[in-house]
């Protein structure tokens, strides 16, 4: 793995029972790169993201992220590593509907054992143009605003690796383009490596690196 490597995958395979859902012989991602993981539904894109986030222990293979071999850490240490290293934007966003926007970000700080820093939350929301929504509940926001809050929650702890699962699904062309720009912009701002899983061809041209899992 090169010294500036962020992700190194070797001989990765994952099965549910006897069904293989993911096979990836080799994949290397340098720090700061922006990758698109392509392929139709069910080709293992989400599984790959979950492996990279340490949410799944793969059936086979070696995975190193940010210098940590994910096979070697487990339990609560893996959870702590995830909180400190990885930011995830989920396809369905899954903001906590009982909590205000500010508390959604504070929850991210609390669960990652980071300092609960209101100034940082305001700054993060401001950078995404939703600082004025801090006290609102997610249900009071538009879809676009909710997406921005979800991105804010993923980057509030300054992750080294930013993962996004189908961020443009169900969005019209303009919104899809904006969502992709937002991720790139935020990854750049925080010096994070960006991996976006999508089957959406519309955002292809925004990413110089592509991994096609259907191949």
């Amino acid at each position, binding site marked *: 793995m090169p010294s500036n490597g962020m992700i190194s995958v070797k001989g990765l395979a994952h099965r549910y029972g006897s069904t293989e859902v993911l096979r990836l012989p080799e994949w290397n991602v340098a720090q700061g790169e922006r990758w698109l993981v392509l392929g139709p539904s069910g080709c293992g894109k*989400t599984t790959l993201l979950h492996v990279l986030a340490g949410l799944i222990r793969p059936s086979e293979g070696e995975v190193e992220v940010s210098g940590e071999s994910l096979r070697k850490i487990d339990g*609560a240490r893996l*959870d702590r590593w995830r909180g400190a290293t990885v930011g995830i934007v989920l396809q369905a966003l*899954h903001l*906590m509907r009982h909590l205000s926007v500010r508390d959604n970000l504070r929850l991210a700080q609390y669960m990652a054992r980071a300092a609960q820093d209101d100034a940082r939350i305001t700054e993060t929301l401001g950078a995404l143009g939703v600082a004025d929504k801090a006290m609102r509940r997610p249900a009071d926001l538009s879809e676009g605003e909710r997406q921005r809050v979800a991105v804010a929650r993923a980057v509030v702890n300054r992750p080294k690796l930013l993962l996004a699962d189908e961020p443009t699904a169900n969005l019209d062309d303009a919104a899809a383009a904006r969502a992709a720009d937002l991720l790139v912009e935020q990854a750049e701002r925080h010096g994070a490596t960006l991996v976006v899983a999508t089957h959406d061809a519309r955002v292809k041209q925004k990413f110089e690196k592509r991994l096609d899992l259907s191949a």
Partner: protein
Amino acid sequence: MNLATLSASYLRARPLNTALSLILLALGVGTIVLLVLVVSQLEERMQRDARGIDLVVGAKGSPMQLILSGIYHADAPTGNIPLAEARALAKHRLIKRAIPLALGDGWKGYRIVGAGHEYVELYGARLAAGRLWQKPMEAVLGAEVAARTGVGVGVRFAGSHGVTGQGEEHGAAPYDVVGVLGRTGSVLDRLVLTSIESVWQVHEEEHGPADEADRKALEEDREVTVLLVQYASPLAAATLPRQINSKSELQAASPAYETARLFRIVGVGVEALRAFAVVLILAAGLSVFIALYTALEERRYDLAVMRTLGASPGKLFGLLLTEGIVLAIVGAVIGLALGHALASALGVWLESQQQYPVTGLEWRPEELWLVVVALGVGVVAALLPAWRAYRTDVSRTLAQG
């Protein structure tokens, strides 16, 4: 943000479930608190009133009635006993002190008790105003009687026959209030005290003695109602009551025995209420369990997302457990407040009925146990939901949606 505030925000998001759990728990805890307060205060006060009295001697009848009327002034007397016999008994070598009381009259619902000054000493009462009675027809009011009637030294009043205040008035023989006692927390607070001679005089004047021979006959017939006896030695308990009860006209009753019997009778009702309260607390536990468990389904994404944010499974376990604990603590605190408020309300009502007072401003060590039990119920109810939260399969949950 911490587990307590986070769980509180989830509880607030389900107001109906949360309210149901809290109401059940508060009702259960409140009922038990009320029982604990009332029973323990009643026992304490009854013990205080009976302190220094080993035996009550009076006319034949129900021994419990004798105790209730002779010590607690809460029932009709069993009848009177001849003064001569009471005096003879008082000289018994096993008796250290015998206080005769003459009962039967009342004023505004308070009982007029004819007694010697030693009756005041028995309860260690001090005068708040005026002096003790010296001559017949002088009266001293208990603290509560004075406070509630607003009557003080120098006022003249007429007693009435019977204790309820509904009987005929003894208008021809009014009492003069010469003193008011300080509060003792005993039955004395609710009595009007006078000399035994006053009680005799009131009744003799009603019948109007015609001449000297009549007066003599009346004096020979003089009676008292009860004799409060203090033993000279513990040995007396074994022999004296039997000796007295074998005499045809007298009855001796032990306050310790009769009050224990009374509490056994009342105890059945108390136990039934307590069992009902326990059922309420268990129902509260069930409600907490159902609320947390059914909410798991709609919360599974939240729990999975918390894991993606860096929460360990233990954290999710802790979150659900904290929700059970928060419910238990809040429910128990509301219950404690409810129990004390009910006891205070009951106290106000009892006082207006001139009954044994009860206060809600007292705390009992048992209440601490109640909080511990409520906590236990909350924790047990939350265990299974917490375990399911702990086992959340993050990847599979997120892949579903």
